[in-house]
Protein backbone atom coordinates (compact mmCIF):
# COMPACT_ATOMS: atom_id res chain seq x y z
CA UNK A 1 0.00 0.00 0.00
CA UNK A 2 1.33 3.41 -0.95
CA UNK A 3 1.47 5.99 1.84
CA UNK A 4 1.98 9.72 1.44
CA UNK A 5 5.41 11.12 2.31
CA UNK A 6 3.90 14.46 3.33
CA UNK A 7 0.64 15.94 4.58
CA UNK A 8 -0.17 19.41 3.27
CA UNK A 9 -0.95 21.90 5.98
CA UNK A 10 -1.71 25.29 4.43
CA UNK A 11 1.43 26.52 2.71
CA UNK A 12 3.70 23.81 4.05
CA UNK A 13 4.23 20.10 3.59
CA UNK A 14 4.56 18.32 6.95
CA UNK A 15 6.40 14.97 6.94
CA UNK A 16 4.00 12.06 7.45
CA UNK A 17 6.30 9.12 6.79
CA UNK A 18 9.96 8.15 7.56
CA UNK A 19 10.92 9.06 3.96
CA UNK A 20 9.28 12.47 4.40
CA UNK A 21 11.19 13.01 7.65
CA UNK A 22 14.48 12.11 5.91
CA UNK A 23 13.77 14.67 3.15
CA UNK A 24 12.85 17.28 5.79
CA UNK A 25 16.00 16.62 7.86
CA UNK A 26 18.23 16.76 4.77
CA UNK A 27 16.69 20.14 3.89
CA UNK A 28 17.16 21.36 7.47
CA UNK A 29 20.81 20.24 7.67
CA UNK A 30 21.53 21.82 4.27
CA UNK A 31 19.93 25.09 5.42
CA UNK A 32 22.16 25.13 8.55
CA UNK A 33 25.24 24.37 6.42
CA UNK A 34 24.34 27.19 4.00
CA UNK A 35 23.88 29.61 6.92
CA UNK A 36 27.30 28.76 8.40
CA UNK A 37 28.93 29.01 4.96
CA UNK A 38 27.35 32.41 4.19
CA UNK A 39 28.11 33.72 7.69
CA UNK A 40 31.80 32.84 7.33
CA UNK A 41 32.07 34.93 4.14
CA UNK A 42 29.75 37.86 4.87
CA UNK A 43 30.72 41.33 6.11
CA UNK A 44 27.66 42.20 8.21
CA UNK A 45 24.53 40.75 9.78
CA UNK A 46 22.29 42.14 7.02
CA UNK A 47 24.62 40.66 4.39
CA UNK A 48 24.22 37.22 6.04
CA UNK A 49 20.46 37.49 6.42
CA UNK A 50 19.73 38.75 2.88
CA UNK A 51 21.82 36.00 1.27
CA UNK A 52 20.51 33.33 3.65
CA UNK A 53 16.86 34.33 3.06
CA UNK A 54 17.36 33.84 -0.70
CA UNK A 55 18.88 30.39 -0.14
CA UNK A 56 16.21 29.46 2.40
CA UNK A 57 13.49 30.35 -0.14
CA UNK A 58 15.23 28.16 -2.72
CA UNK A 59 15.44 25.24 -0.27
CA UNK A 60 11.76 25.75 0.63
CA UNK A 61 10.77 25.85 -3.04
CA UNK A 62 12.65 22.61 -3.82
CA UNK A 63 11.19 20.95 -0.69
CA UNK A 64 7.66 22.01 -1.79
CA UNK A 65 8.38 20.67 -5.28
CA UNK A 66 9.35 17.28 -3.76
CA UNK A 67 6.16 17.32 -1.65
CA UNK A 68 4.01 18.19 -4.66
CA UNK A 69 5.66 15.54 -6.88
CA UNK A 70 5.31 12.83 -4.19
CA UNK A 71 1.57 13.64 -3.84
CA UNK A 72 1.18 13.59 -7.62
CA UNK A 73 3.02 10.25 -8.00
CA UNK A 74 0.85 8.76 -5.25
CA UNK A 75 -2.29 9.61 -7.22
CA UNK A 76 -1.00 7.88 -10.39
Amino acid at each position, binding site marked *: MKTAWFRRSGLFYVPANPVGWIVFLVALVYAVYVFIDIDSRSHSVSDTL*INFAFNLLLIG*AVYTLIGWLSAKLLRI
Partner: protein
Amino acid sequence: MEPFEETLSNMSLPETGELQHRHLLSGQIIQLKEERNLTLWWVTIPLFLIAAFYMRSCYMHNSFTEGLETFINDQKMPATWLFVIAPALLIVLNAFRIKKIYFLAGSPKLINLVSAVWMNLAMITIAVGCIILYFTLIHLS
Protein backbone atom coordinates in the same frame (compact mmCIF):
# COMPACT_ATOMS: atom_id res chain seq x y z
CA MET B 1 -45.44 -3.21 -15.28
CA GLU B 2 -42.14 -1.47 -16.07
CA PRO B 3 -39.15 -3.81 -16.53
CA PHE B 4 -36.96 -3.99 -13.43
CA GLU B 5 -33.65 -3.51 -15.30
CA GLU B 6 -34.90 -0.37 -17.04
CA THR B 7 -36.06 1.12 -13.73
CA LEU B 8 -32.73 0.30 -12.13
CA SER B 9 -30.71 1.84 -14.97
CA ASN B 10 -32.83 4.98 -14.87
CA MET B 11 -32.31 5.25 -11.12
CA SER B 12 -28.62 4.48 -10.82
CA LEU B 13 -27.06 6.23 -13.81
CA PRO B 14 -27.64 9.84 -12.79
CA GLU B 15 -26.66 9.10 -9.16
CA THR B 16 -23.43 7.38 -10.22
CA GLY B 17 -22.66 10.21 -12.63
CA GLU B 18 -23.15 12.82 -9.94
CA LEU B 19 -20.95 10.97 -7.45
CA GLN B 20 -18.15 10.51 -9.99
CA HIS B 21 -18.44 14.15 -10.97
CA ARG B 22 -18.19 15.29 -7.32
CA HIS B 23 -15.24 12.97 -6.68
CA LEU B 24 -13.40 14.28 -9.76
CA LEU B 25 -14.16 17.90 -8.88
CA SER B 26 -12.95 17.54 -5.27
CA GLY B 27 -9.74 15.87 -6.54
CA GLN B 28 -9.15 18.76 -8.95
CA ILE B 29 -9.74 21.34 -6.20
CA ILE B 30 -7.18 19.61 -3.93
CA GLN B 31 -4.65 19.65 -6.79
CA LEU B 32 -5.49 23.30 -7.50
CA LYS B 33 -4.58 24.18 -3.89
CA GLU B 34 -1.34 22.18 -4.12
CA GLU B 35 -0.35 23.92 -7.33
CA ARG B 36 -1.19 27.31 -5.80
CA ASN B 37 1.30 26.54 -2.98
CA LEU B 38 3.97 25.41 -5.39
CA THR B 39 3.53 28.55 -7.50
CA LEU B 40 3.64 30.77 -4.41
CA TRP B 41 6.96 29.28 -3.27
CA TRP B 42 8.61 29.58 -6.70
CA VAL B 43 7.25 33.06 -7.41
CA THR B 44 8.45 34.31 -4.00
CA ILE B 45 12.10 33.94 -5.07
CA PRO B 46 12.04 36.46 -7.98
CA LEU B 47 9.82 38.72 -5.85
CA PHE B 48 12.41 38.57 -3.07
CA LEU B 49 15.16 39.48 -5.54
CA ILE B 50 13.09 42.40 -6.88
CA ALA B 51 12.43 43.64 -3.32
CA ALA B 52 16.11 43.25 -2.37
CA PHE B 53 17.32 45.24 -5.41
CA TYR B 54 14.65 47.88 -4.83
CA MET B 55 15.74 48.31 -1.19
CA ARG B 56 19.39 48.46 -2.23
CA SER B 57 18.55 51.17 -4.77
CA CYS B 58 17.01 53.23 -1.94
CA TYR B 59 20.08 52.99 0.32
CA MET B 60 22.91 52.87 -2.23
CA HIS B 61 21.46 55.61 -4.48
CA ASN B 62 21.79 53.56 -7.67
CA SER B 63 19.03 52.62 -10.05
CA PHE B 64 16.75 49.62 -9.30
CA THR B 65 16.84 48.40 -12.90
CA GLU B 66 20.64 48.72 -12.95
CA GLY B 67 20.99 46.27 -10.01
CA LEU B 68 18.56 43.74 -11.46
CA GLU B 69 20.09 44.09 -14.91
CA THR B 70 23.54 43.32 -13.47
CA PHE B 71 22.14 40.22 -11.73
CA ILE B 72 20.44 39.00 -14.93
CA ASN B 73 23.58 39.53 -17.01
CA ASP B 74 26.04 38.10 -14.45
CA GLN B 75 23.92 35.11 -13.37
CA LYS B 76 22.39 34.15 -16.73
CA MET B 77 21.38 30.56 -15.92
CA PRO B 78 19.80 31.07 -12.46
CA ALA B 79 18.11 34.28 -13.68
CA THR B 80 16.60 32.47 -16.69
CA TRP B 81 15.34 29.66 -14.44
CA LEU B 82 13.86 31.94 -11.81
CA PHE B 83 12.42 34.62 -14.10
CA VAL B 84 11.40 32.66 -17.22
CA ILE B 85 11.35 28.86 -17.06
CA ALA B 86 9.82 28.34 -13.58
CA PRO B 87 7.12 31.05 -14.02
CA ALA B 88 6.25 29.74 -17.52
CA LEU B 89 5.85 26.15 -16.23
CA LEU B 90 3.73 27.31 -13.32
CA ILE B 91 1.50 29.41 -15.61
CA VAL B 92 0.83 26.32 -17.77
CA LEU B 93 0.22 24.11 -14.70
CA ASN B 94 -2.27 26.53 -13.11
CA ALA B 95 -4.00 27.33 -16.40
CA PHE B 96 -4.64 23.63 -17.12
CA ARG B 97 -6.03 23.08 -13.62
CA ILE B 98 -8.36 26.11 -13.91
CA LYS B 99 -9.55 24.81 -17.29
CA LYS B 100 -10.31 21.36 -15.78
CA ILE B 101 -12.21 22.95 -12.86
CA TYR B 102 -14.18 25.09 -15.32
CA PHE B 103 -15.37 22.02 -17.23
CA LEU B 104 -15.98 19.81 -14.17
CA ALA B 105 -17.95 22.57 -12.41
CA GLY B 106 -20.26 22.64 -15.43
CA SER B 107 -19.03 25.89 -17.05
CA PRO B 108 -19.96 28.20 -14.12
CA LYS B 109 -20.47 31.95 -14.45
CA LEU B 110 -17.26 33.97 -14.72
CA ILE B 111 -17.78 35.63 -11.33
CA ASN B 112 -18.18 32.22 -9.59
CA LEU B 113 -15.13 30.81 -11.32
CA VAL B 114 -13.03 33.88 -10.45
CA SER B 115 -14.09 33.74 -6.79
CA ALA B 116 -12.95 30.09 -6.65
CA VAL B 117 -9.62 30.48 -8.44
CA TRP B 118 -8.68 34.15 -7.79
CA MET B 119 -5.52 33.17 -5.90
CA ASN B 120 -4.31 31.07 -8.84
CA LEU B 121 -5.11 33.91 -11.24
CA ALA B 122 -3.09 36.28 -9.02
CA MET B 123 -0.16 33.83 -9.08
CA ILE B 124 -0.38 33.60 -12.88
CA THR B 125 -0.38 37.43 -13.11
CA ILE B 126 2.73 37.69 -10.90
CA ALA B 127 4.47 35.00 -12.98
CA VAL B 128 3.61 36.87 -16.20
CA GLY B 129 4.96 40.06 -14.57
CA CYS B 130 8.29 38.30 -13.81
CA ILE B 131 8.64 37.17 -17.43
CA ILE B 132 7.81 40.65 -18.77
CA LEU B 133 10.31 42.26 -16.37
CA TYR B 134 13.05 39.82 -17.43
CA PHE B 135 12.58 40.44 -21.15
CA THR B 136 12.26 44.22 -20.66
CA LEU B 137 15.59 44.28 -18.80
CA ILE B 138 17.24 42.02 -21.41
CA HIS B 139 15.95 44.36 -24.12
CA LEU B 140 17.26 47.44 -22.27
CA SER B 141 20.77 46.05 -21.67
